[in-house]
């Protein structure tokens, strides 16, 4: 068996008296789409925050590509190739689409100040490459026509796609999406579905997905984890989850 891309064991996050995440373990292999589902307030976003370094977990280990990343700074983790989106769109809304894509490549463009001030050839080349990568990914998410528009003026669906493109341009190996389909219409959801599958099959990355849209989750996930009130409830493939009595009870009890 190949090495696990992400290997989370016994992850716990405590806020005062509240255990928002309690002893969660999850695994992601290369080129897999793995989903986390659970009722609102179950602690899904908190798991993301722990994995991406926004919170330092109270306990547990997070191994990414064989290295322990629990406790590393957020920007160090994303530089290792683990990048996330947020439940609410977080674009640089006063900047244009292409500028959003360039900011994301900041560390690839991080040349010395002097070479930038004097526009040395090596600086120009790096900038050119960054531009080409940006154009490539804008094409992939069908936003190239809007490249010079202010990102705050895009439609909601376009903003969601830009967010994914902005992550992809950093060349991640694991992309974590927090409710990417929330607020999308059925058409846009279908496009998102196709995009996620394309990312896995053509770009060979893995995706960890939090989503409420069961149609989307059941259709594309290689593996599904269910958590309720911070605690793991079940895991398995779509069919196993659909027929799991605990899961059915948790969801019916909630809604």
């Amino acid at each position, binding site marked *: 068996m190949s090495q696990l891309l992400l290997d989370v064991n016994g992850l716990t996050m405590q806020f005062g008296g509240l255990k928002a995440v309690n002893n969660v373990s999850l695994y992601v292999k290369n080129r897999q789409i793995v989903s986390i589902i659970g009722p609102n307030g179950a602690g899904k976003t908190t798991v993301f925050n722990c994995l*991406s370094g*926004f919170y330092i977990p109270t306990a547990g280990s997070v191994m990414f590509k064989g290295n322990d990343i629990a406790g590393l*700074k*957020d*920007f160090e983790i*994303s*530089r290792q190739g683990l*990048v*996330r*989106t*947020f439940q609410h769109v*977080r*674009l*640089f*809304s*006063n*900047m*244009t689409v*292409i*500028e959003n894509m*360039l*900011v*994301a*490549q*900041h*560390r690839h*463009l*991080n*040349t010395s*100040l002097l070479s*930038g*001030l004097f*526009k040395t050839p090596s600086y120009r080349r790096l900038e050119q490459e960054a*531009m080409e990568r*940006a*154009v490539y990914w804008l094409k992939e998410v069908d936003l190239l026509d809007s*490249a*010079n528009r202010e990102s705050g003026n895009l439609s909601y669906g376009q903003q969601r796609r830009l967010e994914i493109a*902005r*992550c992809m341009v*950093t060349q991640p190996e694991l992309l974590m999406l927090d409710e990417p389909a929330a607020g999308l219409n059925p058409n846009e959801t279908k496009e998102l579905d196709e995009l996620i599958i394309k990312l896995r099959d053509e770009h060979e990355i893995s995706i960890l997905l939090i989503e409420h849209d069961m149609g989307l989750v059941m259709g594309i996930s290689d593996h599904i984890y269910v958590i309720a009130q911070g605690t793991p409830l079940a895991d398995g493939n779509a069919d196993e989850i659909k027929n799991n009595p605990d899961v059915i009870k948790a969801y019916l009890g909630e809604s």
Partner: protein
Amino acid sequence: MGKLYNAIFSAGITFVLACLMIGVKLDTDGATLGVTGATPEQWAWIFGGIALVFFSQLFSDQIDAAFRKIPKPQVSHLIPVGDKMTQLKPWLMAGVFVCMVIWPFMVSRGSVDLATLALIYIMLGLGLNIVVGLAGLLDLGYVAFYAVGAYTYALLSQYFGLSFWVCLPISAGMAALFGFILGFPVLRLRGDYLAIVTLGFGEIIRILLNNWTAVTGGPNGISGIAKPTLFGMEFSRKSKEGSTLFHEFFGIDYSSSHKVIFLYLIAVVLVAFVIYVINRLMRMPIGRAWEALREDEIACRSLGLNRTAIKLSAFTIGASTAGFAGSFFAARQGFISPESFTFIESAIILAIVVLGGMGSQIGIILAAIIMTILPELAREFSEYRMLLFGLTMVLMMRWRPQGLVPMKRPVLELK
């Protein structure tokens, strides 16, 4: 109802403050301390002021509406856009530069001197603009870096006899170093906390300069700081030990205005340099990162941007600009003391940035000119300088909160 409450509250505060500050005075009468009340005339002024505060609060909506009706200059329409701008820009810049160079030969010495001062404030405003306007970090102790630059040149010149041109980059570097050392622990703080710490830092530097008498001369300051030279030529009437004099070299009569004009020209060149650097920075990845960090710090972190390093770069570059201005200031004055670097200087520079329109370079240049020339024009009001200053700020914030010329970002276009 809320309006009335607000008005009464504000009037009450005005009353308490006025009573404490103007209403009663402590007088030493020999060895005894006596309390004297204000004169009836002063009381009349105090109550007039309270009435003004009361009614302006009560009718603040109407007043705001009236302010909104005052026409605002639409500067952005005057600036041509797109291709026309890219064609015109080099000519425009060259024209402005030539005017700046020719102008001092046609006006009085005093005007040139004032213009030099304005240029120093332009430099300071542009530098602080990097920190406040572009990176969004509120720095209330900016004058500290100005002081570091000035003292670096003064001390190096006095103790080691180094020339202005050698010290200029050293001063900038020294100020940058101080910015780095202060910024490293402090930039984790946000907003108000950062403002307080930088405010404290500004005071610490001033007090240090004031008390480290052995090196800095304490409150007496440092005098006789060498003036800049032109390729080693001095601008004085008599040479010291065998150095060439400017007027002798060119075989013209000595004139004290040569020196003033020379200093002015140096300031023009320094400002042009600073403007060029900042313009490049704004178009470089680092400039975009400042902007992005101001808009959404969390998104930046998730994309692998090291926010401490990015903020630190803004802080350091801003500080080095102040160091630049500081060493030039020391050279121009020939004399510096801690008096020149009080908090009020920081406040004026910040006011320039805010009045000009945060982030906007043209706005800041305008504001810096206004802030240096207005006090000169209103000499007879010099006692009320701070009062006028406050009033201008209040009126500006009512009329045009986004500043004289609101910022327009250089937008990167995909061709």
